[in-house]
């Protein structure tokens, strides 16, 4: 009993081992997956054009059934692990990446069933989205733009927006006074615990975005760079002033201020807005832990539109993070951007079938052009502190790339230097005010190398 789902001939290019391990939710999962990635552990396995499946002998009598929809990608396994993707799905992917999974035309019935159910669910979601009212349907999974959703859940049902705004206004007014005081007394006066305390009060005032920014000050202070601390103070102050005077701002900038302060835009709201369809290169990603929450940033750039995008997801430490965007691949999708003066954050609204594979090196631009783009992003949203760029024809050096320094926390990117060998290459990097963070580079033949 099996179903033939291979109707469209399209072959997914095998991912590299690095790309697969990059999907692991944490280090131990990657290690465990390598243990499972032994042909002997799998009683059956196979891959159709889009679906990879396998039956892995576990400790029990019944094997675990693992299945990966490569087009999604989406993962499923019958094991009880709360990790996602689990070691079985990852192990199976590793085997596939090593060309150790035989091609098959037919799926076993359990895998076919799952794929069918998934397709049905996706269709239902699509319908729901199209019919979505403007009301706050789904809670935003991520809180404000660019910050963790601290305290979002604290907004009680029936708590009026006006009431909340008043509380935020009071909190930010206190923040303004505090900052003015710092400048009057001298910067060295404040200490880590002052920011902690201030951050807590801002959470109570329901301004989680500002609270997170204030709590990050501890790291800045640790570096002992007073100029940086002053800069951060100035931008936080600017946000508070912006909130106070939001009625005088252009509508888009006012939206940006609200989001950065911590008024979330719901998923539903974003998805009901216009979408941008393109072939999006997945340039790289960065996971960061703050307050026992892991945030994952995935950087994208559209082939046709040249637009930059950031897909952000969150999960408690040790739990499932969105693993559907694989670095070095390109996805044909509709993205719905969050509103704002410089839209960057986006949601994947719909994924379309891939038009062929092996998209190769994404188009890049000279450094000057990338900087001009960053400049207009910063001009639109002055709090922009991160922007994905693809630089073409740059020669990486030990201390910089294309005349821009690496971020101080970046260790010498030897892998990038090795691929380049002192010759010009295309490099995807994250621009930050302090320097570049390398993401991905490409060989001449289009093979992606994760950095």
């Amino acid at each position, binding site marked *: 009993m099996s179903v033939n789902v291979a109707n469209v001939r399209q072959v997914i290019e095998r991912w*590299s081992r690095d790309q697969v391990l990059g999907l692991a939710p944490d280090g131990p999962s990657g290690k465990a997956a390598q243990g499972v990635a032994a042909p002997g552990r799998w009683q059956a396995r196979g891959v159709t054009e889009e679906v990879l499946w396998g039956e892995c002998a576990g400790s029990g009598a019944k094997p675990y059934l693992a299945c990966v929809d490569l087009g999604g990608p989406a993962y499923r396994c019958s094991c009880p692990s709360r990790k996602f993707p689990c070691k079985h799905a990852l192990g199976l992917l590793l085997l596939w990446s090593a060309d150790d999974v035989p091609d098959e035309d037919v799926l076993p019935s359990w895998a076919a069933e799952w794929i069918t159910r998934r397709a049905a669910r996706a269709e239902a979601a699509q319908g729901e989205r199209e019919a979505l009212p403007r009301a706050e349907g789904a809670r935003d999974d991520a809180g404000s733009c660019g910050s963790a959703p601290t305290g979002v859940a604290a907004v009680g049902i029936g708590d009026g927006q006006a009431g909340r705004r008043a509380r935020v206004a009071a909190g930010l007014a206190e923040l303004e006074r505090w900052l003015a005081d710092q400048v009057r007394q001298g910067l060295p006066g404040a200490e880590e615990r002052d920011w902690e305390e201030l951050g807590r009060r801002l959470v109570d005032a329901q301004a989680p975005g500002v609270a997170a920014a204030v709590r990050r000050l501890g790291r800045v202070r640790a570096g002992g760079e007073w100029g940086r601390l002053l800069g951060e103070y100035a931008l936080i102050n600017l946000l508070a002033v912006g909130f106070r005077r939001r009625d005088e701002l252009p509508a888009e900038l006012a939206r940006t201020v609200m989001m950065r302060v911590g008024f979330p835009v719901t998923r539903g709201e974003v998805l009901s807005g216009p979408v941008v369809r393109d072939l999006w290169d997945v340039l790289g990603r960065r996971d960061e832990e703050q307050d026992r929450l892991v945030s994952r940033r995935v950087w994208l750039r559209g082939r046709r539109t040249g637009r930059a995008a950031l897909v952000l997801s969150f999960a408690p430490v040790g739990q499932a993070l969105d693993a559907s965007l694989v670095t070095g691949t390109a996805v044909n999708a509709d993205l719905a951007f969050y509103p704002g003066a410089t839209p960057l954050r986006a949601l994947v609204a719909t994924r379309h079938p891939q038009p062929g594979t092996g998209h190769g090196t994404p188009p890049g631009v000279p450094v000057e052009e990338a900087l001009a783009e*960053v400049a207009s992003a910063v001009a639109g949203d002055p709090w922009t502190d991160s922007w994905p760029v693809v630089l073409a024809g740059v020669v990486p050096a030990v201390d910089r790339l294309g005349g*821009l320094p690496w971020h101080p926390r970046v260790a010498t990117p030897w892998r990038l230097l090795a*691929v380049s060998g002192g010759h010009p290459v295309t490099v995807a990097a994250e621009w930050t005010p302090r320097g570049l963070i390398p993401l991905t580079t490409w060989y001449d033949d289009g093979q992606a190398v994760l950095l």
Partner: protein
Amino acid sequence: MNDAWDELVSAALMGTHRRPYQGELLESAAVHVVRRRAGRLVSEAEAAGGAAAGEEAEAVSRAAGERLARILGGEQPRLLPEWLQAAAKTGRRVPPHLVPDLLDQGARDRSIRAHLGVLAGHRGRWLAGLNPGWAYLLAEPTGETWELGSAGDRRAYLRELRAADPAKARGLLEGGWEKETPDDRAEFLALLAEGLSMDDEPFLEAALDDRRREVRQHAADLLTRLPDSRLSHRMAERAAACLTVRARTIIAEPPRACDKEMERDGVRAKPPRGTGERAWWLQQIVARTPLAFWGGPAERLVRKRISDWDREVKAGWVRAAVLQGDPGWARALFAWDPLADLLAALPPAEQEAVAADFVKRHGVDGQLIMVLGGVSVPWGADLALAVLKKILKVAGSQPWNLGELTRIAGECIDPALHAMAAALSPEPPVQEVAALLRFRSDMLKELA
């Protein structure tokens, strides 16, 4: 603009109540910060050091590269030397993005460096020029010549020449002998083991007077392998002076002193801790005496009673059998004491037969592992089967003892036998060996 910024920072640092500032300091600062972020300029200076030269050799296939990445990433890390060796035979190189990890590995593990010079290509040497931690690479062979190459290059050159034309290689070495460093002299001399003959004897005899002990030791070892060398004759005379072979016994009377001549012939005067001087000298004399000296078949000699000095004489024989590569003696001595070293003196097929027999009769312990470690690789079907059956047998009774045995089996059995191993039994340890063999089989196919 920078001056204005510095002004802002120092005002904020001091506090405006001490250093007044005209206007809203935080707002001015915000303007500065945003302006600086948006208006960043590219610094012109470009990297020194230039670009890496183009590669003559092609990179290994993508599949082979991915497997190397797996090995470097911690999957089957012990197979790295085998991968490198197989890759070196293809004449290809490692793809650039894997070179840094490989060079890091080489920085920790000297034993793999010899292949890295060629495998890392020009890119590797370019990187080694940028990272002092990888500078060792610049001394490894790259295919350069005798006159200009690194020490590694010159060793490789000499090794090849020696295999093709032993006399010419010796001539080359003799020509510049005085100018070589002591380390190089020792390394080069050891390479004469290949294609050794009596033609080398005068040169080696002269090398016994070298200033460096390692050189003298290598020369003595090589001369020991030549039964007609002057050194062998001198040793036979010394043996005759202290050992008498009788019908059932051997009478030993070790030397009472180690004279200058003995030392020149490679006898070390100072014994290791716990060994008596005379015992030590006796053992070394026996080791360097041509085995033909003893007459009769080894099996019979090994059974003779040796007054007081049994252990020393037999230890000397073991060393002699290994040094002189004598299969007859090695066989006889192995029956008396199964030492891995002795196996090396047997032809490969016999090594396997002897080891397989040993596996059948012996439990899983350190000695079994040692003996198996002495068998030349890859193991053929007979030894493979003997070891797999042993694994199967032990799996039922003492599985905790299997780790090292399954590992060595997986690493040494001919990988082409993976299907046989997989079909033998579904027991996990056997399947583990089969999986490792398959991994190696695939690996070698990718590098074929």
